[in-house]
């Protein structure tokens, strides 16, 4: 059965599985001519249908990568910023991992980094007791906001007009970027260093996670804590998904999902190792998590089943995030690298190219980089 569909030819839509299929699963495989061939997949078919994930390694940092963030989707694609203990946060093209520039100016380890939705501004939080705002197009430093201790987290509002900071002095601060000389609004309450602070619920509320083992939801106007969640262990990471109002939290070996408005628990999933960061796919069908055992885990969000685990990093994973289009996820590790991983393994996207095994030996193969068959971690 042959289909001629130039639109379908752009995507490789298929599943890989080594189970016996009865009746057989059908796979549509695109060819460079624009024709799609349909294969029936039985167990151990002659053409190897299962593809192994090839992570893309982004080098450049010389110390552990401790935080990363994606921008929204802009007319120029989407972007990725990485915070590193070497003090030099970097901006990269989100879908390829290509380096765009390095923000120079911090005099200490950078603990947090973020981009605004349009990727025109960047903000970083560092051990030199400052948070800095940068022009993400020119790389120039725009603002330095002095703090009284190490700053750990920075977050823009949707309109990029306000910056939220949090750090070791236990106080949340809101800076009006239109009036940088003005004193920031301060919200105190945490009894230990703040690890992460995020705007949520249409920028009307703030979520903060601290070493005092609590997560607090604050009202920005009253500066009061609306709700507090207490844990037995320190929360290692927090991600807020505005579309669906879901909060993803990691602590110990657990990945927990909460409703952002009410802080009601939705579900928890336990991983084989201590998890430092997790991220939920924009379509909420899966989530990824990484931690102490250097592996990246992929779980089905609905069934909570572990789908895959990937080796590749040479150190604990500190941060992991899905791209805004959900096609890839990026992980930052103690080994100083960022790695990009495909959500749909084998699909043509960014630098990854979907090829049939026959094509690997044809004249097209010079343009392709094929990793060796045996990749030992």
């Amino acid at each position, binding site marked *: 059965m042959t289909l001629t569909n130039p639109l379908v030819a752009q995507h490789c839509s298929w599943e890989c599985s080594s189970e016996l299929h009865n009746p057989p699963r059908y796979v549509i495989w695109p060819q460079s001519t624009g024709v799609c061939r349909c294969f029936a997949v039985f167990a151990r078919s002659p053409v190897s249908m*299962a593809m192994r994930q090839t992570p893309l390694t982004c080098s*450049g940092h010389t110390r552990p990568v401790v935080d990363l963030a994606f921008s929204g989707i802009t007319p120029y694609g989407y972007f990725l910023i990485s915070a590193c203990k070497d003090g030099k946060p970097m901006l990269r093209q989100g879908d390829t991992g290509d380096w765009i520039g390095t923000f120079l100016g911090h005099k200490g380890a950078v603990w947090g980094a973020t981009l605004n939705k349009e990727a025109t501004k960047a903000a970083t939080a560092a051990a030199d007791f400052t948070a800095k705002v940068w022009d993400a197009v020119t790389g120039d430093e725009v603002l330095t906001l002095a703090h009284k201790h190490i700053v750990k987290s920075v977050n823009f509002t949707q309109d990029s007009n306000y910056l939220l900071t949090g750090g070791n002095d236990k106080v949340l601060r809101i800076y009006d970027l239109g009036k940088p000389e003005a004193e920031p609004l301060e919200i105190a309450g945490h009894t230990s260093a703040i690890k992460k602070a995020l705007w949520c619920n249409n920028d009307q509320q703030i979520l903060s996670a601290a070493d005092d083992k609590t997560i607090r939801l604050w009202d920005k106007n009253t500066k009061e804590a609306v709700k507090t969640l207490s844990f037995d262990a320190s929360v290692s990471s927090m991600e807020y998904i505005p579309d669906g109002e879901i909060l993803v939290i990691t602590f110990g070996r657990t990945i927990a999902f909460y409703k952002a408005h009410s802080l009601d628990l939705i579900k928890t999933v336990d991983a084989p190792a201590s998890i430092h960061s997790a991220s939920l796919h924009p379509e909420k069908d899966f989530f990824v998590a990484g931690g102490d055992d250097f592996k990246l885990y992929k779980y089905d969000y609905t069934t909570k089943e572990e789908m895959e685990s990937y080796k590749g990093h040479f150190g604990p994973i500190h941060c992991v995030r899905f791209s805004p289009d959900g096609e890839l996820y990026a992980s930052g590790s103690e080994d100083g690298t960022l790695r990009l991983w495909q959500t749909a393994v084998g699909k043509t996207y960014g630098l*990854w190219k979907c090829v049939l095994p026959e094509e690997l030996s044809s004249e097209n193969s010079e343009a392709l980089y094929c990793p*060796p*068959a045996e990749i030992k971690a």
Partner: protein
Amino acid sequence: MKTPVSVLRLPRGPDPNSRGFDPNSPRFIALCPTTVSTSSSGSVDEEEQRLRSELRERFLRTLLLMTDKQVQFDMFEKVRVRARFGASDIDVLNFQVSDLETPLGVQKEALLRCHDVISCSFEP
């Protein structure tokens, strides 16, 4: 046996000679200089720009004049060292100097971190 996914190339790494943010990239050209809003009007901008250019040119000419001269660098932590100035890198992050006089002896070749330098003085 699983076939690894093919890749067109590896992600490009940082350029060792610059901090990036290519001014010839489509995004830079389209978004600059209005990426971060400023409140100055047109003519004030031009005058400020002219003065900036003049100061920058003066600075660069000073660096040129400094080449191969004995320069005294005043740095943080009350550090004062003398050396023969060689060159600066493009972003003025490091100064290449020779015969750097330090309390531990004379260093034949060295790089001084510009961020740590408060001032430098020399006889032209």
